[in-house]
């Protein structure tokens, strides 16, 4: 048996293909762009290719992601909050607190022993403390998003970033540069500022070990270091952290697939529907 989880984020779309033993056999990640369904389908196809499978071999697909927008993809949709908690519980079973920093929002989730959600809160109203904030800072400094974490690690004298608003922080960075401050010190300050905001959000749901860090920003080592420092505890991260939502979605897909009679496991119709080719009523099985 094979299933898939597709997580359409505001910035990146992630897809995971998993076998019946809950092993990841294919994964893909790419930018979401303007078409949510288009990105979902593209990454799904890429993950299939890596797994060496075809659409008809996938029994169940769960779609997730994109904040308040529901992603009309796959057989079922599960909120990204549930998916991240589920994925984190799978990779780090002792996770009790989850911080998910994505492209356009930040979430703090209190997770139960079975990967259930006990509480959560989020900031999706403004870019402060999200991937977009880091991206804006990187752009002002003439660096890429992938570089800034490493550069920030070279800092010996972190600066304090006083503004919250991304737009104002851009100006603040420009004036720091004008004063001759070092890029690494500015960046360390930027990462510390985000860590401060994230920890404030985490406090609202309560911080209990273990803490797991997910979402696209978890790939940034500078961010991991700043969060550790601010939390004064170890945090779980893995190369799969960015895929946590898709991983959780795939795990939900396995549970769903196991409960579905074999005759009703059809993916083609759902994919066609996601591409806009068929009526929603055209799902396989009766």
């Amino acid at each position, binding site marked *: 048996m094979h299933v898939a989880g597709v997580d359409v984020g505001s910035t990146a779309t992630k897809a995971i293909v998993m076998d019946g033993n809950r092993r990841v056999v294919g994964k893909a990640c790419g930018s979401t762009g*303007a078409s949510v369904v288009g990105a979902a389908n593209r990454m799904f196809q890429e993950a299939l290719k890596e797994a060496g499978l075809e659409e008809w071999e996938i029994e169940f697909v769960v779609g997730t992601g994109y904040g308040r927008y529901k992603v009309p993809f796959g057989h079922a949709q599960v909120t990204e909050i549930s998916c991240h908690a589920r994925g984190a519980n799978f990779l780090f079973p002792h996770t009790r607190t989850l911080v998910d920093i994505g492209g356009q929002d930040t979430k703090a989730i209190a997770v139960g022993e079975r990967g259930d959600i006990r509480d959560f809160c989020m900031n999706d109203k*403004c870019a402060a403390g999200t991937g977009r904030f880091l991206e*804006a800072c990187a752009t002002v400094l003439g660096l890429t998003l992938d570089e800034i974490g490493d550069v920030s690690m070279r800092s010996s004298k972190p600066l304090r970033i006083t503004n919250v608003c991304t737009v*104002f922080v851009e100006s603040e960075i420009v004036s720091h540069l004008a004063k001759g401050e070092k890029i690494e010190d500015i960046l360390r300050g930027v990462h510390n500022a985000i860590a401060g905001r994230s920890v404030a959000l985490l406090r609202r749901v309560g911080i209990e070990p273990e803490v797991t860090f997910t979402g696209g920003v978890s790939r940034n080592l500078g961010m991991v270091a700043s969060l550790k420092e601010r939390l004064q505890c170890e945090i779980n991260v893995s190369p799969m952290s960015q895929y946590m939502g898709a991983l959780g979605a795939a795990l939900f897909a396995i549970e769903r697939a196991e409960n579905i009679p074999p005759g009703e496991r059809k993916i083609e119709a759902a994919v066609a529907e996601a591409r806009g080719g068929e009526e929603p009523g055209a799902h396989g099985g009766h």
Partner: protein
Amino acid sequence: MRSLALTAGIDIGAGTTKSVVMEDGTRVVAKASLRTGPNPEKAGAEALAEVLRVAGLTRADLAYVASTGYGRYQMVGRDMQITEITCHGRGARFLFPATHCVLDIGAQSSRAMRIDGNGRVVKFKMNDRCAAGAGRFLERVSKALEVQVADLGEISLRSTDPTTISSICAVLAESEIINHVTEGRKVEDIVMGAHLSIADRIIALLRQVGVEDEVTLTGGLAGNVGMVKALESRLGRRINVALESTFAGAYGAAVLGRVRLQKRSAGA
């Protein structure tokens, strides 16, 4: 020899620095404006030099120099600095004597004030924590749409079906706008939507201080016809705006400088 006191008001804002020389606190002699840039101290000095040049005066001719705006403490040679809230209240009153409410939308902050019959601020609310509802928001919009900031107002007037911008954050609104463009929405409708979004932010502040006629718009965005239209449509009433409305802060500083002078000479 002049019998009337000349006072200068210098408003060093986050985007633009405005300067004015007034005679007796009642008549405008000259005014000037320039981009503040990264150095507010330099901007203040240049704005003062420029307004003196336009007026054909020297610093020695000025009896009082009052500074205001976020860079007011950087004004070299000032006699006094006054908060922009106080100055915009006075400046709005100077321009429109029946003003009771002032909306000041600057590059990086926006304020709503209620003033009494003397132009004194009774109550105010401001947002200077984020770019939403300020001029910087429109800068992001112009960048996303690849049009000039100065043209945004005119463009918005062509709108027949304004697009709702649901993101409050300027950065997230930028992405939202790109999506609207991709979906084929008209530029003028998106631009008007952005103006309406700013209008909603500042009107929320205004409601907290209490809406009362007449409402006067000041600050950099007072020069934007789309902003005026958006505010009027959301408020359901006319608002005062003049060509010099962007100078209201500097006017207020010059008027208050004159008041200080009178108090000083009365005390002497």
